[in-house]
């Protein structure tokens, strides 16, 4: 930073401690996953990859990973479609009522997920959606909408409304304007929202505990059960894979933002 003073030693110290505080609990699973013991512990005599092997060959773990993945993809599609349309609608109409709608859309983010989960449990029972793929997709998709609304609204705030007027003055219908002008311009915001919606579904546990039991057994659910029933280090290996995957998505998001900023 040109023209500003660097932080003093005390400031640096506090910054490092804060960073460690955030990162250490995540990093600790790495040595645990590499333990040579048969219970959750740090490596004693050497490093072993056998727990990774267990996870990657176990039908249960692989089944849960696949289930989580498909649920997350479907929930993301739902969240992105609804969230993008909502954000564009609010932006186009732009009245006081649309501000209210935008706040309403953020509700799933503000309300504790356990409250939401209880509500879902009440409604999904009579609808036959408990312990169903569709039920979990709906729950995750709807609670993923706020992420998309936020990122797409931000992208739209930087969108020149004259581009839309220009398209219409040239005879473009609403759907043509949407497809050829608005969507390409806000695509980075949509992708960003999609990544957040995906991660949200990918690691969601509380709602799954309420609305799923046997048929739908997502990855976070299997980790949760593993912790409760046996202290298998395979869970740590799964956790490492999860962290790695999430990190990759976030790095992807970052790279995307960089590219838009440069462009």
């Amino acid at each position, binding site marked *: 930073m040109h023209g500003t003073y660097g932080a003093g030693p005390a400031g640096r110290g506090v910054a490092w401690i804060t960073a460690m505080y955030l990162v250490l609990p995540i990093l600790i699973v790495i040595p645990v996953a590499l333990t040579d013991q048969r219970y959750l512990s740090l490596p004693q005599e050497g490093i072993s990859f056998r727990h990774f092997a267990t996870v990657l060959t176990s039908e249960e773990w692989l089944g849960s990973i696949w289930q989580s993945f498909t649920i997350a993809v479907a929930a993301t599609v739902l969240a992105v479609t609804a969230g993008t349309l909502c954000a564009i609608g609010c932006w186009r109409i732009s009245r006081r009522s649309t501000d209210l709608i935008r706040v309403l859309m953020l509700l799933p983010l503000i309300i504790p997920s356990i409250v939401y989960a209880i509500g879902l449990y009440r409604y999904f029972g009579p609808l036959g959606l408990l312990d169903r793929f569709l039920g979990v997709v709906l729950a995750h998709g709807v609670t993923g909408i706020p992420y998309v609304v936020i990122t797409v609204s931000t992208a739209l705030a930087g969108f020149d409304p004259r581009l839309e*007027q*220009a398209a219409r*003055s040239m005879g473009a219908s609403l759907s043509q304007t949407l497809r050829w002008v608005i969507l390409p311009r806000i695509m980075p915001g949509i992708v960003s929202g999609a990544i957040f919606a995906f991660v949200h579904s990918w690691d969601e546990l509380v709602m799954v505990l309420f609305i799923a039991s046997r048929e739908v057994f997502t990855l976070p659910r299997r980790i949760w059960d593993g912790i409760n029933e046996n202290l298998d280090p395979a869970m740590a290996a799964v956790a490492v894979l999860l962290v790695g995957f999430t990190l990759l998505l976030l790095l992807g998001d970052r790279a995307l933002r960089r590219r838009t900023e440069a462009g």
Partner: protein
Amino acid sequence: MSGAAGHALAIRGLTKRYGAFTAVDDVSLDVAQGQFLTLLGPSGSGKTTILMAVAGFVEPTAGAVLLDGRDITPLPPERREFGMVFQGYALFPHMSVAENVGFPLRVRGQSRADRDAKVRAALDLVQLEKFADRLPRQLSGGQQQRVALARALVFDPTLLLLDEPLSALDKKLRAELQEELKALHRRIGRTFVNVTHDQEEALSLSDTIAILNHGKLVQVGGPTALYERPRTRFVADFLGKSNFLEGTVRESTLDGFALEAGGARLQVKLTAPAFPPPGGSVVLLSLRPEKLALLAEGETADNMVEGTIRAWSYLGAGFSLVVATEHLGEIRAVLPAWKAAIAPAEGLRLRLGWAADAAVPVEEDAPPGDTT
């Protein structure tokens, strides 16, 4: 871009209110086929609102927009077939120049071959054939402006609307593009409606200028008519510069009158057919600075005034002087520099003169919000 004649536009009693604020107040205008009309006014005068109502982006509170006599007020913008050049151009940043220009054709579902030929012709028209594959951000402001023009013209629009098309360019480029725009208008024979706050641009481009202030139409006419015979003080002041002299009519003749202003007696000859004002009435005169001449020793003019230079500046083509006079207050004069008989200096005494037909009577403007 065939030689099809332009279309006639008519605006009837157009009014637009936003709550208690009246942006456009009962404006009626006619633009004949192939004409170049400029809506000229300061910011907030309602000129852009009128253009947006013609384009279909603003729904009028009252009044109608007619194209060749047909009421198009209820039509949405995408059904009006008007080309429009937006302020800041509004080029699609994610599309190349050719894709931008081809957009209106793509929207109409034309085949790629048809599109390519028309895009090439349109780019040719604005001399940008070589830039077809560039992105808008790789072009200069002037080039972007030309792309916007090509894009607005490629689908043979019935009208071309221009919203401050040259305001983002520097002065020299603006002058160049003004000439290009004028040549283009002549070549394609379309009806153009332009919005600007730049009086020079309005004077040089237009067949007709409509001057707006506080949402009201103040005066409509050709550039020369408006400049030479402004109806009100606002028009005289906004379109060029002007001195204002107020006095009482002392003597009326058939085509003129004598005015007593601050102890001086001024001769006024009316150039347009009008009744001279009755004796005793108070009249405001507009006198353009360039119509004053420096009088040499012994030289006379219809009207003469003596004063000292209070301030002056050199403009290249001329000297601009502020002269303090005994009877008429401060008077601005612009003298051609190449034949100025004096070297201006503050405090220098001089005599200025002007012909009886140089000054024209103008009205005071109605205050804003007055509906009469």
